[in-house]
């Protein structure tokens, strides 16, 4: 086996110790610094790429520009205060962040919320997914140069955000989930409004199908670009739609016994065998459609009753450890909550965020692609900076 010059350069550069003070080796090619302020990195992710012409020799993501130390902050807050914090992890689907944490606390306390609360939780969870993934569907267009889709995404997401706001009071950061239930019931007329908004979301999905998926330029830019094989996806812990696009038939909403109400709805998990950027886009598009179906069915079957279980006024979580994970808009999100039984907050709260693992595959995935494909791949992996950096 012969070693090419660019492989040698990659090896030498790989040996240079710290990415932050990476010595620029004057071999052939050049080092291009994408970010932390760059239009393609939605947030402040920095990626250092070594180029040979327009081809990437190696890529090194440097996260941390938005690290807020949530795991430390959780340790000095009590359980009610933590929910308002973790809202801000994946800020586009923030209600979905609260749910697994509250479920973990409930599991430690041995409490289960009443069915109506579980239904409303699930409905809001799916609305958060719609709000989040809709933006991806539009943003992918922007990253590929089509400016129009993202405006449709913002337009139709607004209706979903309005719904979340009228139910929870918070557009982006609902802080609505409580141990033992939810804060409030739905206001009158909410369900009818929701049906209208879901119709708009479905219309948006059709528009995206026409504008992007059917466009041969879009297909050429995405098909076969950034292929993640199944076993590599597993090793890197890639989850969510990214894993399903690699043919991994795994969806925690279906595969995990959960008190939430997904089991009461009839829906489908979409997978795609290709594992490329197109597959990731397609899977997410179908997931938004499925999410609208789930919400509609759950609204039809919404049971009457209380929304809060009996919970002591001063919450004291018994000592123990719990791991609860859910299928969040970006992938598998889990909280490993360790309680020492003191009246304050968790002793340790490990937050497993999907984007962290989904982006850790980037150095592997970007090797040998072209600069425009770097953008395609990053866009199709779909990360939220707050979700990587926590």
């Amino acid at each position, binding site marked *: 086996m012969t070693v090419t010059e660019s492989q040698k350069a990659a090896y030498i550069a790989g040996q240079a110790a710290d990415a932050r003070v990476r010595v620029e080796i004057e071999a052939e090619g050049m080092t291009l610094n994408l970010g932390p302020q760059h239009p393609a990195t939605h947030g402040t992710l920095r990626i250092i790429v070594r180029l040979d012409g327009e081809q990437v020799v190696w890529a090194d993501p440097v996260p941390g520009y938005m690290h807020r130390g949530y795991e430390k902050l959780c340790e000095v807050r009590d359980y009610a205060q933590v929910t308002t914090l973790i809202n801000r992890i994946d800020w586009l689907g923030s209600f979905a962040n609260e749910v697994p944490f509250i479920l973990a606390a409930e599991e430690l306390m041995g409490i289960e919320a009443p069915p109506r609360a579980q239904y409303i939780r699930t409905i809001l969870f799916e609305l958060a997914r719609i709000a989040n993934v809709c933006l991806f569907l539009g943003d992918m267009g922007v990253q590929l140069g089509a*400016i*129009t889709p993202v405006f449709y995404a913002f337009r139709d997401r607004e209706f979903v955000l309005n719904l979340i706001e009228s139910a929870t009071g918070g557009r982006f950061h609902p802080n609505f989930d409580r141990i033992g239930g939810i804060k409030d019931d739905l206001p009158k007329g909410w369900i009818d409004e929701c049906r209208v908004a879901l119709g708009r979301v479905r219309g948006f999905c059709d528009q995206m199908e026409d504008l992007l998926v059917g466009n041969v330029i879009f297909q050429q830019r995405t098909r076969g670009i950034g292929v993640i094989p199944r076993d590599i996806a597993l090793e890197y812990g890639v989850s969510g739609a990214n894993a399903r696009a690699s043919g991994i038939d795994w969806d925690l909403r279906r595969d995990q016994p959960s008190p939430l109400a997904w089991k009461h709805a009839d829906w489908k998990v979409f997978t795609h065998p290709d594992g490329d950027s197109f597959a990731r886009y397609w899977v997410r598009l179908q997931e938004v459609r499925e999410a609208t179906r789930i919400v509609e069915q759950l609204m039809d079957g919404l049971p009457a009753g209380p929304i809060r279980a009996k919970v002591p006024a001063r919450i004291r979580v018994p000592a123990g450890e719990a791991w609860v994970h859910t299928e969040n808009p970006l992938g598998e999100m889990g909280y490993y909550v360790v309680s020492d039984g003191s009246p304050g907050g968790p002793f340790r709260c490990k937050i497993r965020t999907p984007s962290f693992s989904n982006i850790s595959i980037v150095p592997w995935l970007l090797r040998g692609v072209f600069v425009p494909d770097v953008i395609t791949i990053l866009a199709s992996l779909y990360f939220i900076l707050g979700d990587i950096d926590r």
Partner: protein
Amino acid sequence: MSLPVAAHTILGIRGAYWNTALLKAVAVLLVAPTGALLIVYLFMFKMMAHMQSRLGPMEVGPHGTLQAIAEAVKWLQKEDVFPERADRFVFAMAPVVVLVSTFLVYVVIPASPREVAANLDTGILFALAVSSVSVIGVLMAGWASANKYSLIGALRAAGQLIAYELPLVLAVVGVVMQAGSLSLNRIVAAQAHFKLFGFGGLGLFAIPQVVGLFLFLVAAQAELTQTPFDMPVAESELVAGFMTEYTGFRFLLFFIGEFATAFALAGLGATLFLGGWYFPGWGLPFGHLAWTREVLGPLVLLAKILGLLFVIFWVRFSFPRFREDQLQAFAWKFLIPLSLTNILVTGILKVAFHA
């Protein structure tokens, strides 16, 4: 008309020449930025906004009509920043080169039988030649900026502009063959006289040269670096390509250059394929009403230009962009063979019909 320079002779040339020359220069210098402003307002602001369920600018002037001017004024106020390691002279000259190449195209586009700055016999050749000069300006900008994004953008632009210059020229060849002239005014006249199977009077080459029109539009889209061919300025990859380091006045020059070129290329397209200033029914010997053509001609041309621009920008707002290699493959493997075929077919038909 008496202009201040109307002295008897300057440099041994008669004053009347200087009068008309100055008038023509002023006209070109006015039309090009006006065309750019018109495009920015009509297409970039309003059409784009409405296609995206927005309203666009609404505050400056009724329905934001003066917004484009406000933007220009804003840019003029900004600091003129040179990057530390920039090649200052080249950096400063680059937008000028781009703008000059744009202005030169306007010189040969006829707005009516007489309203043309220079009625060159080789008008179309001249227009295509000077419009390619802008590549040099783009390369200068990319190189002088001392920025990696600029450099990549400029190299992409150079590759792209050269690749698409060819189909653009070849698309025009069909029209030239059919008209039998390189003069733009004579091409308009040929379209006015053109008859297809005995029917005529539509006054356009768009029907027999439909392939040529398609090729011209695609190539013009690429020349203008509009989506789906906007890799040189691909904002999600290269920030702003060769314009990354430019601010204020110099950025404004690039900006005017971009849209004035769009206006000029649409003007060429309208002249070549849609009959230019000619409106069906204006038979060429027009008798004592001939002066009306001088007034209405520019308006007809403007309408046709706007029609073509609508298509160009409609595509721009709807499509994602190609990748660099796909763009090259598209030009060399599809557009150029197609344009050569078009020339061949045109030639055969021309000989067949005129024999």
